[in-house]
């Protein structure tokens, strides 16, 4: 993203939305520089969502690239009924769920490294050192267990947890992205968390 342009999220205000609309219009006419801007704007969030769903860097890389390519090819069919961001998310989510259905039971973990900040995150440090019965379990071990537990969830449940609890996407937006109503999103989130808590019981004490 160039330094002259405002670095903001699509939810934050009108100027960005207008700018996004301009970029989408230009990209639809075949302007690849405009589309490059759009890719740079959303690449981290799209990659992260797919990565948290697959727990595999290589798969996330391929799927994220393919999602952006498919979005570009389908740009002419984008009516603007929702934001480009939501529409792009929907493409990535569908692509990931289809991929996971084909990959069923053949997955392997290829986890990304933890950011340096993780070691200094007070919540996580407290969780590992105080709340965990297995005091020797380091963050890396916890990361592995967490990803294994996530992979035990069904795809729709995992997607809701990833989008809401990891990515911070609102219930409304998740409903739009996944093509279901808010009640379904809340219900999936509840059961997914419950299941996840069961899988990770030995790492957590009740609050």
């Amino acid at each position: 993203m160039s330094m002259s342009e405002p670095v903001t999220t699509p939810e934050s205000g009108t100027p960005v939305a207008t700018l996004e609309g301009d970029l989408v219009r230009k990209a639809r006419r075949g302007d690849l520089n405009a589309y490059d801007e759009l890719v740079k704007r959303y690449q981290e969030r799209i990659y992260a969502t797919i990565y948290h769903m697959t727990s595999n860097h290589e798969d996330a890389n391929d799927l994220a690239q393919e999602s952006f390519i498919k979005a570009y090819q389908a740009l002419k069919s984008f009516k603007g009924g929702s934001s480009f961001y939501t529409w792009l998310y929907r493409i990535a989510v569908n692509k990931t769920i289809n991929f996971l259905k084909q990959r069923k039971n053949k997955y392997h973990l290829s986890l990304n490294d933890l950011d340096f900040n993780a070691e200094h995150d007070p919540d996580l440090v407290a969780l590992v050192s105080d709340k965990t019965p297995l005091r020797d379990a380091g963050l890396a071990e916890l990361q592995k267990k967490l990803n294994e537990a996530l992979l035990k969830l069904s795809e729709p449940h995992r997607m809701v947890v990833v989008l809401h609890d990891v990515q911070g996407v609102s219930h409304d937006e998740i409903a739009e992205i996944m093509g279901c109503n808010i009640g379904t999103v809340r219900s999936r989130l509840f059961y997914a968390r419950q299941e996840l808590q069961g899988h990770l019981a030995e790492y957590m004490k009740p609050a």
Partner: protein
Amino acid sequence: MNQSEHNFGNLKRLLKLKRQEVPPPGYFNTFSDSVISRIRAGEAGGAQSATERLHVTAPWLVNFLNIFETKPGLVGGFAVSLCLLLVLGVVFSERSDSATKNILATVQSAPANDSLALVAAPPMASVTDSSGIIASTNPVTSLQPVATMFGQPNPALFQAASFAPAGTGN
């Protein structure tokens, strides 16, 4: 729902760990370039380069060439062996030519009474007509001499005919 939100507090804190998982350093610096180049490649309408076509049609050849990239010493060895093969091919082809000539010479100098030898044709008395076509009355020679055209006559199958005109006898 608030109660359940409260119950899931630890889980949500644990899930924050996911946010700290990051791809390899510098990964996003080249990500958009990869996407755009793949889009451009797709727009080129499947106009693959010769190398890409080779990857699809003859992957074994690509693997073979890749060996040379990793071990340059093998290129020299491969070139020397090719030259050696070429020289050997030339030498052997010359030898086989001389051997053929020897065999032909042996056949031509073989004795005439050999049953398998070619029957020498009698001197041809040829006549050249006005149109320049060579006509000959000599029989066509064959490799195996045949006594008669229909083989040996069988005396049991026919009897000699005799003719006596009326009034000449008795």
